[in-house]
């Protein structure tokens, strides 16, 4: 089990100890909150057929999407129902559709995929009739295809079986509206045909030459570039699509689920997005384990560029394929994100009805917590590395060694810890604000917004007498929470909430932290 860390780290406390009792409730309950966070972190068996069936109503809708996602998060999904569950998880069917509606959707999607695929193949063959589509490694030179074939071979290839006639007409119209330029198809083919023959070739579905599944990978990835031209094909998508294909073994279902997944992560596949993601990881690691961050800085690897692979591929290369697939569904449950229902609840619980400044960045997806969890689980070993290359080597050798459930539990603990820490930090920040020269600004802001301030108090359930608190606040200059002079027995709740609202609303506008 991981090293258990006990002490929380804060920014240096304000030197005036007078300020510390500002948030006594939180400080006294620190251990308790910690315990609570840890007790929330656990793993369950994968979602079973019986449990999954029980989540549906008589017409086949999923009654509670949240419960479904929670179950997936806790233990993943049993193999037997994975296809069905993934169709919901990856947006093939909205969870509130009935079985009947799903049939219609399925027909529509199958026809649309077939039509989209025909679309680029026709554009390609119109320009290069002797392009051999049956070779997954074929691509185009400026002068023509790398491998030529007799045109007749392609005719058979292009004839795709189609479904319902009305649906196929609709799909044809749909596909023809999607722009398709020969230059883009050419470029996509060039990249994709290089990567397809080296995608998980050790896995039984992709083994051996002339494996038709390689054509599936190629076709689906090229078709994807039609739908998302601004993202295009990026190396790594092949690994991810392969996961979807392994689960469904149906080209069109895998395709649509992949498209859905890509819309959730596509920013990370753009050049600037890649750097942003790595930056977010740096920030989160700095926040949760500053000492390790300092050490990585000494080793000149604090940029964490070597984590790029983790984030881009959702750790797929760190685990065997089966575990990787389970991790993909767990991360895609989005059960525990800072902006998810569960995340909001965790934050609310940590704040215990006290007002806070919310400094949390919702860019910190659960996958970033998973990444930080790997660091913290192996921090002792990392501290033994004497330079950056050793750190790099150590991290890359973790591939295949990680215990997924252990990392998940650690990630969850870190998630709750982060929720709590950001709440506590808010108080410390508020304290230092009031104490520091910014006080002048707060003073100014408070005066500046006198009318709003009053309004806030009212809206928070305070009564007019609390308006006197305004004066008390100014005269006390932050030595302690301002008390409402005329109402000694009044609960500080509304007042604190008002401060929160004011600072939230105004301080960020006046200066940035």
């Amino acid at each position, binding site marked *: 089990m991981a090293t258990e860390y006990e002490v929380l780290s804060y920014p240096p406390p304000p030197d005036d100890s007078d300020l510390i009792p500002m948030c006594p409730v939180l400080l006294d309950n620190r251990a308790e909150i910690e315990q609570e966070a840890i007790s929330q972190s656990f793993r369950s068996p994968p979602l079973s057929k019986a449990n999954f069936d029980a989540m549906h109503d008589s017409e086949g809708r999923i009654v509670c999407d949240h419960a479904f996602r929670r179950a997936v998060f806790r233990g993943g999904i049993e193999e037997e129902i994975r296809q069905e569950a993934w169709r919901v998880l990856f947006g093939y069917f909205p969870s509130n559709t009935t079985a009947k509606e799903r049939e219609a959707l399925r027909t529509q999607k199958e026809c649309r995929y077939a039509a989209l695929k025909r679309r680029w193949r026709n554009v390609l063959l119109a320009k290069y009739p002797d392009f051999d589509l049956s070779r997954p490694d074929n691509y185009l030179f400026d002068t023509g295809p790398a491998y030529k074939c007799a045109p007749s071979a392609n005719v058979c290839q292009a004839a795709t079986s189609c479904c319902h006639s009305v649906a196929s007409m609709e799909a044809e119209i749909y596909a023809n509206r999607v722009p398709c330029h020969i230059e883009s198809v050419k470029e996509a083919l060039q*990249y994709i045909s290089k*990567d397809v023959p080296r995608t998980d070739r050790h896995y039984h579905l992709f083994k051996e030459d002339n494996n038709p599944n390689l054509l599936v990978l190629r076709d689906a990835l090229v078709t994807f570039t039609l739908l998302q031209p601004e993202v295009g094909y990026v*190396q790594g998508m092949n690994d991810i699509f392969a996961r979807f294909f392994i689960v469904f073994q149906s080209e069109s279902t895998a395709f649509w689920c992949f498209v859905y997944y890509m819309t959730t992560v596509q920013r990370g596949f753009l050049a600037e997005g890649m750097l942003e993601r790595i930056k977010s990881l740096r920030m989160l690691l700095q926040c949760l384990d500053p*000492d390790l961050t300092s050490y990585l800085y000494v080793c000149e690897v604090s940029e964490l560029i070597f984590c790029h*692979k983790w984030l881009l*591929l959702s750790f797929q290369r760190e685990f065997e394929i089966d575990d990787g697939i389970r991790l993909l569904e767990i991360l895609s449950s989005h059960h525990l994100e800072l902006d998810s229902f569960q995340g909001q609840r965790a934050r609310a619980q940590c704040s215990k009805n006290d007002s806070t400044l919310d400094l949390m960045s919702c860019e910190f997806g659960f996958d970033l917590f998973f990444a930080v969890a790997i660091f913290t689980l192996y921090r002792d070993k990392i501290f033994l590395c004497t330079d950056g290359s050793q750190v790099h080597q150590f991290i890359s050798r973790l591939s295949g060694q990680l215990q997924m459930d252990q990392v998940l539990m650690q990630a969850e603990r870190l998630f709750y810890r982060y929720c709590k820490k950001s709440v506590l930090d808010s108080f410390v920040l508020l304290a230092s604000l009031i104490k520091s020269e910014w006080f002048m600004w707060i003073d100014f802001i408070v005066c500046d917004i006198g009318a709003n301030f009053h309004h806030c108090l009212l809206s928070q359930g305070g009564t007019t007498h609390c308006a006197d608190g305004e004066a008390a606040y100014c005269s006390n200059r932050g030595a302690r929470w301002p008390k409402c002079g005329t109402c000694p027995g009044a609960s500080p709740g509304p007042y604190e909430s008002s401060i929160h609202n004011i600072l939230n609303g105004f301080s960020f506008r006046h200066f940035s932290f």
Partner: protein
Amino acid sequence: MAAGPYNYSYIFKYIIIGDMGVGKSCLLHQFTEKKFMADCPHTIGVEFGTRIIEVSGQKIKLQIWDTAGQERFRAVTRSYYRGAAGALMVYDITRRSTYNHLSSWLTDARNLTNPNTVIFLIGNKSDLDAQRDVTYEEAKAFADENGLTFLECSAKTGENVEDAFLETARKIYQNIQDGSLDLNQADSGVQPKQLPRTTPAGGGDAKQCNC
């Protein structure tokens, strides 16, 4: 994880750059493991390999960073160029486009490394001579024009792979000997033998995660 006894005099940092699918990872693998890795998965970000070699009787540890080739990843891989003593710039002799992109790779390498970085041009896949798309003479002329050393190699058969890595090291070593490479410069890409750190800086009292 401890570094063990340092039985070499220098560490040279190398980077391998070039278009996707030219065989960068396979070259590295052939050099470090003396094996050809068929269907080797493409690199995301950077991979890393080391080998200790001998130049003029001196043991030298090569620290080789193998980068992802797709244009989209350049923003990420660029940070590895800094402080490289050697850069192996690879193209595929059977694909002209990979050769045509060399000037852009060269610009990156020149801009992001120090002026003494030894840049070595490798035309990979020399075993596929029948599918050749770039002649030896043409590439040689390009290399001469730009002051690069050039070899055609095959990561598959191992032909010339050893030579490319060793020749680069010889050049770097020569630069050290004649004083043109200043080892005190932070980004020289060469580290003289150093004693293992007794206490990792910042790590002494940092055994507890403060989150």
